[in-house]
């Protein structure tokens, strides 16, 4: 196809979008709505998945050692624990370290003296498991060892959370899938009605010798253009909403880990745009098929 034909086709798409202005506005708004929902779903999914991994990574077991154990025995315990299957790292925090840390965090220097030289802190081993599912078994094994005072870990809460995050993940994927499907349907409905409203026009074009490709192109471009405009609007809305949400979460509920990686946010927004254009193009190909006998 000659270059000036391509240029003509693109200009033509703009012109026909302008002539059917209300149809175009309706199309852009539906695309935008679909993409906004899609964008929110992706961010929702990213955050639930992030939340899940953050909580899942809490495979920490705190082991408190009996006061009657001397330092050698403590080191020996640490070595024993280190070789338990599923144990990643074991870190010793001696009672001396503990009180120093406490003093530092409280901002006092004479705490030990005030306590009459009695250190209330036990020696503590911080055990990291390689996998959440192993935490309970490891904890039980350690509790059975001699010289152990107490073992603490997430316990029942952890299993519940794992199930919840799995469930949230699937829900997120289902939500994204449903909205992607709805967007595709809406765009193709719009293009279809564009095609239908121009059915006689298409018939005339064919009668004066237009090829199928020539007839198909403007709809293809129109579909992409609709996706593009809808995408740009959606990016504005989702981007602004997410920035607002980030600021709110940081100031209000600081402890919840929110995905704030700029690259990630930009690529999600970019993907929304590409997604919109791709959907527009696919939907228009899908809609003009019946004219290409």
């Amino acid at each position, binding site marked *: 196809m*000659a270059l000036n034909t391509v240029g003509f086709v693109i200009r033509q798409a703009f012109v026909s979008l302008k002539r059917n202005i209300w149809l175009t506005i309706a199309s852009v708004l539906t695309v935008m709505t679909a993409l906004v929902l899609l964008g929110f779903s992706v961010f929702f999914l990213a955050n639930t998945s992030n939340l899940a991994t953050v909580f899942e990574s809490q495979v920490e077991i705190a082991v408190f050692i009996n006061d009657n154990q001397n330092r050698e025995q403590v080191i020996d315990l640490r070595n024993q624990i280190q070789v338990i299957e599923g144990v990643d790292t074991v870190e010793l925090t001696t009672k001396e370290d503990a009180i120093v840390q406490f003093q530092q965090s409280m901002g006092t220097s004479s705490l030990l003296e005030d306590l009459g030289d009695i250190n209330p802190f036990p020696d503590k081993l911080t055990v990291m498991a390689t996998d959440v599912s192993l935490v309970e078994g490891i904890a039980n094994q350690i509790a059975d060892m001699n010289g152990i005072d107490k073992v603490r870990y997430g316990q029942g809460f952890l299993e519940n959370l794992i199930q919840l995050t799995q469930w949230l993940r699937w829900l997120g994927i289902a939500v994204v899938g449903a909205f992607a499907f709805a967007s595709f349907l809406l765009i193709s409905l719009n293009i279809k009605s564009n095609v239908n409203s121009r059915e006689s026009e298409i018939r005339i074009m*064919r009668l004066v010798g237009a*090829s199928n490709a020539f007839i198909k192109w403007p709809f293809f471009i129109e579909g992409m253009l609709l996706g593009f405009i809808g995408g740009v609007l959606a990016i504005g809305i989702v981007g602004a909403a997410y920035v607002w949400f980030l600021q709110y979460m940081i100031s209000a509920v600081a402890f919840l880990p929110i995905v704030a990686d700029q690259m990630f946010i930009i690529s999600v927004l970019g993907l929304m745009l590409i997604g919109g254009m791709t959907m527009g193009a696919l939907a228009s190909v899908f809609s003009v098929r019946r004219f290409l006998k």
Partner: protein
Amino acid sequence: MISIKNVSKIYSNGARALSNINLEISKSEFVFLVGPSGAGKSTLMKLLYREEEATRGQVFIDTINLSRLNAKQVPLLRRRTGVIFQDFKLLSTKTVFENIAFAQQVIGKSKQEIKENTLYILDIVGLSRKKDSFPSELSGGEQQRVCIARALVNQPQILLADEPTGNLDIENAWGIMALLEGINQKGTTVVMATHAMHIVNKMKKRVVKVEEGCIVDDNLGEAY
């Protein structure tokens, strides 16, 4: 150039429009199709640019069998053929200029060429001042002249004119006939369906008379 062999056309609703037609038209010939309304003149034309397909028999343009054309070849056939449609078939969302430009964009002419050709042909059919009007803003005769301009602008090898003077006053009608005679002299084969007997009688061309789907007369000169 055009060869119609044992062609019958029965529309999908059962209407029999043509019965066992045989017709040969050679290159650069000028042929009038005459006959009463509903005789099958338009149907015969539609077979020639493949808007309709023959139910039986064969239609050839040169050596091309039109019933053997695939989807890609149909546009190519139509680009060699200019059609003045009985019902104009203008694009209502495009201006007069755009309607005529469109037929040239389809075959990939350059923007400059299109502009020159379009302005030239609009001048010839006397519509220069209406180039930015939409078809709905034109009279029937003006719309007909846009349709004529579109059919002629690509200098087709075959011109199929279905009632090209139907909506024109006598002066405009003779203007259009002069135009058709001119392009015919330059080598374009012209087939024109018409009820305008005064034109047919004065032009002294081959006249093919159709009645109830059959060719009942084929002679040179006068129709009646």
